[in-house]
């Protein structure tokens, strides 16, 4: 699915990265804990989060996250916007809550970047 379709179905606004809406995305990870983003998110996925500070952008960049969707109608901080521009990571903002955002995307074919964390995960 193109990021543009993600934007449309979530009725999201584009905060950064209007020029990158043709990017293809197929997996996602949702968390408000950046340690979990580091540990579990896979490169190329979209990140759904309720955090709005610059640290989410740096963490996303470290994990090669394709795009960030901020949920619950929040707006990213000025520092986060600047950093996202610099690192060229698109940010969308949707009014849907995390659960609804994930459910809507899942129903349209986006899947989790991993299914579950079991014994051999860290290896």
């Amino acid at each position, binding site marked *: 699915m193109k990021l543009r379709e993600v934007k449309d179905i979530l009725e999201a606004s584009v905060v950064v990265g209007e020029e990158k809406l043709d990017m293809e995305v197929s997996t996602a990870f949702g968390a408000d*804990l*950046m340690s979990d983003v580091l540990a579990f998110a896979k490169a190329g996925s979209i990140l759904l989060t309720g955090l709005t*500070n610059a640290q989410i952008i740096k*963490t996303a960049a470290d*994990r090669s996250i394709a795009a960030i969707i901020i949920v619950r109608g929040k707006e990213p901080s000025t520092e986060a916007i600047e950093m996202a521009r610099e690192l060229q990571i698109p940010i969308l903002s949707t009014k849907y809550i995390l659960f609804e955002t994930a459910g809507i995307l899942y129903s349209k074919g986006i899947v989790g970047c991993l299914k579950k964390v079991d014994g051999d995960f860290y290896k």
Partner: protein
Amino acid sequence: MRKASSAVWKKLKPEVNASENILVKNSFDVDGGNFDTAGTVSTRIKSILKEQGLPSDVVRRSAIVSYEAEINVVSYAKRGVINLTVTPAAVEIAVNDEGPGIPDIEKAMQQGYSTASQQIREMGFGAGMGLYNIKSYSDRFDISSEVDKGTFLKMIILIQKP
């Protein structure tokens, strides 16, 4: 009273030979309390490892452990140094900080245990997962700490698994 403690976790026994061919040796300073630059060193480490053409799994695990360790230095210490050494066999990331130290390492290693400030938590860290993640993603993890002095971490990520 100062209290020193240490612990080691080994998943594998890497045979890291000190005289082995060193491909990369770098040292980076980390500014304690400066959340604006937190993550910069790990990003640098990640790009150095990528340039070395290391397997993506090794780059990923090294980036995760260095990022968590860097966030810890920024969150708790006055300053710290991260040393990166790469040999054909392994990536070694050693972190030395000047800070409050960890009184009870066993407790600090538990998932969910944290002494983080509100500021750290608002950034999405400080939920007591950092050291646990570092341990989980390292092939060998050494930690030692002295209260009121500082903490030393050494993470080894094997490039070639035995």
